[in-house]
């Protein structure tokens, strides 16, 4: 579904994504990595929002630069910002997308995706009254209205409570079962371990490791978790800075 070949993007002197090679099949694929590793940049290139500095990628067989409009007709993108209009109702928010995508039989399709996301009884309320989890599900409803082949999710469970996160994951699983490919980024490694078919850990624009969560964890050792794999492969600035407990205590005492 997605073929990434030597994809790079730099901003001035900073190389955000460096010669990325990846192939994503029909699966739930999780892109993991510390803040600033190049996850969002990668997603923005694949969703045609950002031009690569070099290299290519194909989504559903279409080149992300030369055939960007065709790519856009096959995908949906939900960024991490929770961009839903508070002054519109849930249904109106979805309707806008159905109109922009030019969906035939608009109202029945809108009702269908709202129902799918479990928002039917609140569809007529203003989004201002929705909880974070509901807003996220509303965004999924918007993204599903044109039946995309690939769904890009940037931090879909960020800032949601436990049950909200669980619900989002159940929906993602259901979409995979329906045949959709899901490409997502997340910081919640336990969730990635549980729900993703394959994950890649990216650090400073490079892929550190890629594989199924089971293979990655078992290669580290028995009872290892994806967190261990992550810490093994990624040296974050926080970690490099170190934590000197004596120094910290002295600082506290001085106050």
């Amino acid at each position: 579904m997605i073929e990434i070949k030597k994809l790079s993007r730099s901003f001035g002197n900073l190389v955000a994504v460096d010669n990325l090679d990846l192939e994503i099949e029909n699966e739930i694929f999780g892109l993991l990595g510390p803040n600033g590793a190049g996850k969002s940049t990668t997603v923005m290139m694949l969703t045609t929002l950002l031009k690569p500095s070099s290299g290519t990628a194909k989504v559903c067989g279409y080149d992300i630069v030369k055939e960007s409009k065709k790519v856009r007709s096959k995908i949906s993108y939900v960024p991490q910002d929770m961009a839903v209009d508070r002054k519109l109702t849930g249904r109106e928010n979805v309707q806008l997308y159905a109109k922009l995508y030019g969906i035939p039989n608009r109202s029945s399709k809108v009702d269908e995706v709202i129902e799918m996301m479990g928002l039917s009884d609140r569809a007529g309320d203003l989004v201002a009254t929705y909880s974070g989890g509901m807003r996220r599900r509303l965004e999924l409803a918007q993204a599903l209205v044109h039946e995309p082949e690939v769904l890009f999710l940037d931090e879909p469970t960020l800032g949601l409570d436990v049950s909200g996160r669980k619900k989002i994951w159940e929906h993602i699983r259901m979409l995979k079962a329906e045949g959709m490919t899901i490409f997502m980024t997340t910081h919640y490694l336990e969730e990635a371990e549980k729900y993703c078919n394959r994950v890649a850990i990216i650090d400073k624009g490079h892929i550190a490791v890629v594989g199924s969560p089971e293979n990655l964890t078992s290669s580290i050792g028995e009872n290892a978790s994806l967190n261990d794999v992550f810490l093994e492969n990624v040296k974050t600035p926080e970690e490099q800075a170190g934590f000197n407990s004596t120094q910290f205590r002295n600082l506290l005492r001085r106050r």
Partner: protein
Amino acid sequence: MMRAVYYYFERDLVKWLRGKVTVISSLVMPAAWLIFVGLALPTKFTENYLEFITPGILVMTMLFSSLQGGSLMIFDKILGFLNKFMAMPSPRESILYGKILFISVRGLMQATVILLIATLLGVRILNPVHIFLIYLTLFLFSVVFSALSTMIGLYLSDHDSYAAVNSMISMPLFFTSSALMPYDVMPVWLRALARLNPVSYAIDSTRILFQGGIPVQGLIGLAIGAGIMVLLGTYQFRKAFV
């Protein structure tokens, strides 16, 4: 394309109409200008000052509301809406055109309030052709400045700097225009500025329409200006996101 423009326009319009305070404030403000400046100002530059100043207030209202309009694009950008819209297959420029259309239509609604109050206060009622041409003049004028403010907004991507730039250009543009006084009572330096000011073009054209004439030159000039600004806006928009 036209459809997508309309859907984006509709989104902004519904959102605006639901914010009751913003609607009321945007309709009361121009009315206050007209009443207090038009009727209460002790210095009169012309004989029938209300009739003289009504075109000035109309254009001023369009100027301020279109310059303010760029903040809509900033919010769509920083809140993540723009990225979602840009990842859709509908033509990307339609986002920009929808904004320009909404800002201009919102301005025309404010203009309607002013026209109604001016009529109540005794400004002559005009025939339908002139009313239509007044709306056309104001619309073209608004397209020029809403395209400009949207471009500034996209370029700065920060609401505070945008508001600063906005107030830096809006007041000078207004006070160096022919809105408040006729050219012959202006000091020489101001007259020179006012002749160059694009805001004066719109005001003078509207004034001619109020007097029953047809400002062919002014309309053509504004149409060309609007065309150029829309092209520039499209160019910037395409360049910023490919």
